[in-house]
């Protein structure tokens, strides 16, 4: 191979083997995060230089097997089938080789040159485990490198082996997995058929034959690329029927049996002693953290701490950024040049553009902190525990325990909470969680409620008003969850199988990289919609040229007045409709825009314009209606679906209208 060539390398492994740590170690900050096409599964790619080669590294989602039982596994299977990489790096957990080798043996069949990196060697050594790497290497027919990804141990050897493999200094053989004779025979005869088609030199025909026999989805995945596959369908069906009849079980199950039997044999031959992975420390910590009675209170304390941490640290920075942008707006307005340009354009720049960018930047500290805390919780292994503790509660609304943390954090800010859904295990839970989060009472909505309740209610009553809105938010979250479960909006839930990994100390590098990546990601994916949204609202409230923003002559007011009849049964006037429209940018703007619209001192004006009943109805509407543009764009970015995004807009508006209507009309009937 010539130098300056790009080689594609994919990292594949079962969950919890330190895949991301190795990925980060190899690529550093040269990463890009995106989604796999059509699904809400994260796709990470990165590059690094290796002796003149550019290595494009792809971090495949964690999966147990290419026999897909989850969306992540489908992504991996389709990736290998459709665009086979040049080299595969497979990571195994040294403490439990058996668990990892099932996947290794399956992927090794593909014929793609492969390296096995045996990670967490330090912990294996501490447990007194010895692995015969020479024997393992011989049996697997591929280079095997012991590494400690957390400490960077063995990475040079890994790169060295990668280079040797690429330059053809070592050749790849691949292991032999023995299956019952008739299975082998059927697979080989189908492989011969595939060979006749002469389709893909990169993948072994035996590998393709097994994939095709296992499921029709594999055939489907290749059909687009290689239409000739269609000709095989009768042969595949026939072989599958014959084989399943003889085996008395489904082919994927039979193949898993062969693989894991081989894996068991390999482990017995190459590791020194029987593995006792139940590490003492984890057992002791779990006895407290997962305690029958103490578990949930401790969880709530940890959450309270995280919550307080994020907002105590983030809000001052956010305010600082807000002040900075306000200063920027003012200084642009007072620029000498501003006097020579029409005030309309100056306003557009300051209140439209700068405001829009300001809204985006103001999210940075919260998102960074949120993900720093999230990765601490996740990398330490506590996330799985929290999910375990609260699973039953969430199961009743069709979610699993992990989603609880996201929903809870939605009470701080919806945006990172929705971005955080990508760590959830299945597409089903991700979509449902994304759709209930907008009904949580975030801190921006809280500002509105404190302001309005403070004006309309006596100081003794106001806190209870806000509290009742919290309760309403809980109720709506549960109702929406139940509703989505009932209509099966996100398809069937997957069976719940969650690994509970041993506790581990998170590394600073991984945590910081994660926060950095998320911020970059937010900037790339969310910012355009946010800035656009802000500009649209600005245009509506400032056109036609020359009107006072938000005044009765503006476009927004015209819209507000024209849809006012819709809001009359809710006790909401056109002035508040404009405020709600402003609220699309960010909920906290609702307060400021009320001030603009009513002019002068908003407190007395509002108190005069709104009865407590009307105010309450307005607050209920504010709580439930369409989330802010940042949240909408996060939902769009995470779900990769306009259907889901559109659904939340409609659902929010409908629920807000319904609840306000019931409340206002009910209140009127009762004589308030």
């Amino acid at each position, binding site marked *: 191979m010539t130098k300056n060539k790009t080689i594609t390398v994919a990292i594949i492994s079962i969950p919890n083997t330190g895949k991301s740590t190795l990925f980060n170690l190899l690529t550093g900050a040269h990463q890009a995060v995106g989604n796999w096409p059509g699904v809400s599964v994260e796709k990470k790619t990165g590059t690094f230089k290796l002796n003149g080669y550019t290595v494009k590294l792809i971090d495949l989602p964690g999966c147990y097997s290419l026999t897909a039982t989850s969306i992540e596994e489908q992504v991996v299977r389709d990736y290998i089938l459709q665009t086979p990489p040049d080299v595969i790096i497979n990571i195994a957990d040294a403490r439990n080789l058996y668990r990892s080798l099932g996947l290794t043996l399956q992927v090794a069949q593909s014929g793609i040159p492969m390296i096995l990196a045996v990670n967490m060697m330090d912990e294996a050594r501490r447990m007194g485990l010895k692995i015969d790497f020479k024997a393992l290497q011989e049996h697997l027919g591929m280079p095997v490198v012991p590494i400690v990804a957390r400490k960077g141990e063995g990475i040079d050897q890994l790169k060295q082996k990668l280079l040797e493999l690429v330059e053809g200094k070592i050749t790849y053989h691949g292991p032999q997995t023995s299956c019952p004779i008739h299975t082998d025979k059927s697979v080989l005869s189908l492989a011969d058929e595939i060979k006749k088609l002469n389709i893909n030199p990169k993948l072994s025909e035996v590998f393709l034959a097994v994939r095709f026999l296992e499921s029709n989805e594999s055939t489907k995945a290749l059909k687009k690329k290689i239409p000739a596959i269609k000709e095989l369908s009768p042969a595949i069906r026939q072989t599958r029927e014959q084989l399943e009849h003889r085996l008395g079980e489904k082919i994927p199950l039979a193949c898993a049996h062969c693989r894991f039997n081989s894996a068991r044999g390999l482990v017995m031959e190459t590791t020194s002693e029987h593995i006792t992975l139940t590490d003492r420390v984890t057992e002791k910590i779990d006895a407290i953290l997962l305690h029958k009675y103490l578990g949930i209170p401790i969880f709530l304390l940890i959450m309270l701490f995280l919550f307080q941490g994020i907002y105590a640290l983030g809000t001052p920075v956010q305010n600082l950024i807000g002040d900075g942008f306000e200063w920027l707006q003012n200084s642009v307005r007072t620029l000498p040049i501003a006097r020579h340009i029409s005030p309309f354009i100056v306003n557009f720049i300051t209140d439209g553009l700068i405001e829009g960018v300001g809204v985006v930047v103001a999210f940075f500290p919260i998102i960074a902190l949120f993900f720093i805390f999230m990765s601490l919780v996740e990398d330490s292994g506590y996330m799985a525990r929290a999910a375990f503790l609260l699973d*039953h509660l969430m199961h009743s609304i069709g979610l699993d325990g992990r989603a609880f943390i996201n929903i809870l954090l939605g009470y701080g800010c919806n945006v990172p909470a929705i971005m955080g859904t990508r760590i959830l295990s299945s597409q089903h839970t991700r979509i449902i969680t994304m759709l209930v989060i907008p009904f949580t009472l975030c801190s921006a909505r809280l500002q509105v409620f404190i302001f309005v309740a403070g004006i309309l209610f006596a100081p003794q009553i106001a806190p209870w008003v806000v509290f009742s809105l919290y309760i309403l938010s809980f109720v709506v979250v549960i109702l929406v969850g139940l509703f989505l479960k009932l209509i099966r909006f996100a398809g069937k839930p997957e*069976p719940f199988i969650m690994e509970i990994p041993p506790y581990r100390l998170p590394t600073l590098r991984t945590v910081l990289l994660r926060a950095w990546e998320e911020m970059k990601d937010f900037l790339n994916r969310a910012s355009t919609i946010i800035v656009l949204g802000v500009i649209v609202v600005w245009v509506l409230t400032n056109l036609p040229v020359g009107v006072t923003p938000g005044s009765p002559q503006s476009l927004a007011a015209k819209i507000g007045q024209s849809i006012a009849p819709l809001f009359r049964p809710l006790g909401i006037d056109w002035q508040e409709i404009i405020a709600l429209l402003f609220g699309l940018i960010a909920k906290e703007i609702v307060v400021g825009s009320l001030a603009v619209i009513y002019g002068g001192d908003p407190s007395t004006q509002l108190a005069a314009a709104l009865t407590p009943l009307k105010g309450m109805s307005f607050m209920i509407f504010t709580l439930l209606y369409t989330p802010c543009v940042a949240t909408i764009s996060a939902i769009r970015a995470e779900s990769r679906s306009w259907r889901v995004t559109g659904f939340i807009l409609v659902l929010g508006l409908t629920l807000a209208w319904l609840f306000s209507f019931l409340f206002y009309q009910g209140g009127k009937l009762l004589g308030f």
Partner: protein
Amino acid sequence: METVLMLPNVECKIISIDGNRQLANRLTQMGVLPGSVLRIVRIGPLGRTVEVLIDQGESIALRSEELRKIKCKILALPLAAVKDKQKTYRVRNFAGGWGFIQKMQARGIFPSDIIRIKETDGYEIISKDSRLIRVGRGEAEKIIVEPVDETL
């Protein structure tokens, strides 16, 4: 055929996984196959969610209704979970600290003792030398016994 008992320290060997095909597939691809041994570690505080230790060393969480679909052979269970008084059991180990082991040994119960159960209400057991020993319910939860196959 037996199903898994939802109690901590119950150990069982998988005979077959069926019923829920999706679950069966998932577990199989994880390497949990007929012949694997499961141990219930704990039940979640709200019930229904169960932490299970697989003999290969990993801990996984499952829901009890899914776990019940696994057909298995019970290998060990706490004395408190024994329902069948006719059978003979062997004391396998104590799921307690050093103090508990001392206490049990002072009462004459040692690991690998063959015992019979006389009364499951107040837990009266008959030890190998035909002495009657009473243990409390809390203690019975920590004495792990395995059924003795009398046909051998």
